[in-house]
């Protein structure tokens, strides 16, 4: 009798033990993640508008229809992907070049790493603030330095043609160090054997880079780009503090547009549907992106 009790006690423990560790976490995540998802979905099906409380009614997919056919929605999506596309591309090119350049021992390497860590760790609000001051047409340092080169300074953030690019430059300033640090760590993790073997075979310079270094770094490149893309699509702070989506709507990324719809126009229902549309797009894009990158990664590891 005693033995049976003991046995069942152990077995019970074995089956349920892992869940004790996981349970609080899973409960919290599931309830506090599922809740917003469900509530957001429900809201997206209503005409909830805080300017007209009490007039909420169930409107089905009307919000979705309105947003998908809205010019402003497509504009914001275009801006978002332009911002992310060019931003991450520039960050990668610059970061990778820098990583290759600094991939050796030199005095001040630790110092360089500390310095480059700073933009990453600052709040995008602070970064946006700093650059807003720099871009100031009358008293900003960008125009001051450009003056030395004989270039006339412009109101970078206030002109339609230059606003988005100026934002992208700020983003590149903040996040290139991230690419640099990741890729540098990757480069440092590569063993010398690959390079020695290749050099014996006569490879050098560009060929070395293309056929040895890059394929070996594929996993890290994938992860670094993936992280940056996902984070860049979710940008909000920078736009809020630098341009508020303007001038006009040239810098109105989708995330900001959703915010405007919800907290400026108070159209909660529309905002919810927009948010869901955007999340779906981002998720689909991320999954496709991941699959594509991993596929090419596997092939090249021959």
């Amino acid at each position, binding site marked *: 009798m005693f033995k049976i009790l003991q046995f069942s006690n152990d077995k019970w423990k074995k089956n349920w033990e892992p869940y004790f560790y996981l349970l609080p976490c899973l409960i919290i995540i599931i309830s506090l993640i599922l809740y917003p998802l469900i509530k957001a979905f429900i809201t997206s099906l209503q005409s909830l508008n805080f300017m007209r409380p009490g007039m909420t009614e169930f409107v089905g997919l009307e919000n979705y229809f309105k947003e998908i056919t809205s010019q402003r929605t497509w504009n914001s999506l275009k801006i978002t992907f332009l911002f992310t596309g060019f931003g991450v591309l520039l960050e990668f090119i610059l970061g990778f070049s820098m990583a290759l350049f600094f991939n050796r021992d030199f005095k001040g390497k630790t110092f360089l790493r500390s310095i480059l860590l700073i933009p990453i760790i600052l709040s995008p609000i602070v970064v946006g603030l700093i650059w807003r001051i720099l871009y100031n047409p009358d008293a900003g340092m960008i125009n001051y330095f450009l003056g030395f080169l004989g270039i006339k300074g412009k109101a970078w953030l206030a002109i339609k043609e230059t606003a988005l690019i100026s934002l992208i430059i700020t983003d590149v300033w903040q996040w290139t160090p991230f690419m640099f*640090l990741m890729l540098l*760590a990757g480069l440092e993790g590569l063993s010398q054997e690959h390079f020695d073997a290749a050099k014996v075979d006569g490879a050098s310079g560009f060929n070395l880079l293309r056929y040895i270094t890059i394929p070996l770094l594929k996993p890290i490149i994938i992860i670094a780009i993936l992280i940056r893309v996902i984070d860049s699509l979710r940008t909000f702070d920078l736009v809020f503090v630098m341009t508020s989506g303007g001038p006009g709507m040239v810098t109105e990324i989708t995330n900001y547009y*959703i915010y405007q719809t919800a907290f400026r126009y108070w159209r909660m229902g529309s905002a919810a549907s927009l948010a869901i549309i955007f999340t779906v797009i981002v998720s689909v894009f991320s999954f496709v992106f991941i699959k594509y990158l991993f596929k090419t990664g596997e092939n090249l590891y021959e």
Partner: protein
Amino acid sequence: MNSLYKKRNKKFFKGIIFYTVLVIIVFIITFPLIWVILTSLKSHVDTFRMPPKWIFTPTLVHYHDIFTKHPFLNYILNSIIVSFSSTALSLIVGLPAAYGLTRFQIKRNKDIAFFILSTRMAPATLVILPFFILFRSINLIDNLLSLIVLYMIFNLSFVVWMMRGFLREIPTEIDEAAMIDGCSRFLAFIKIIIPLCRSGIIATSIFCLVMSWNEFIFALVLTGQKTRTLPVAITTFIEFSGTHWGQLTAAGTIAMIPLIVFSILTQRQIIRGMTMGAVER
């Protein structure tokens, strides 16, 4: 002899180029920060004089102003309370979860981990709408608790993801050795495993602290006058932007300095955390 000189010259030349590039890059990174700090120390008259005055008598008037004309100390305290509380909470819940994921053969182990990671993919605006509506209805806007709870959630997925990587490095033999010696698994976890992955915990906490400290949109929407955190406070200075650059840069400097100091001190941890899991494939 000639070729020896040529070689040495070439090396010297290359060295100069290298360090020039180094200096340029350091300049590009640090100049904007230094500029803001300098501006915050300039008197009203000097602030935006063009061409800029490089040598000037520094003044602390703006710093004095932001603490007296605004409840700036409150803002700082709010940020501190929210960051530390949410980080602590997410560690308490997340560490065991990460431990559970790595130590037990749970079916769908990978799925759970991926699910937890995918919570990072949703844009903040999707999450904030329902919570805003919810907190508004139960009167929890302008209450630090709402922020702490929310930050805990997204810190949680991060904690689990990172600690999972760190815990995987610790071999299960250690757990088993401890349990053979008679202590329960839970005690083994607390007394042995956790101290072993201390550096991982520190790196993770640093990330969580920084992410919570810098978080903006949730704080923007869910806080009012009393509970405002630093990032939101800074943007309120921008409303007055035309005339109050001094205060704005002073506020920005105060927001920057602790992070800069912090990052220099914990540099190795941060980089380790960032590149962990990416390098060891």
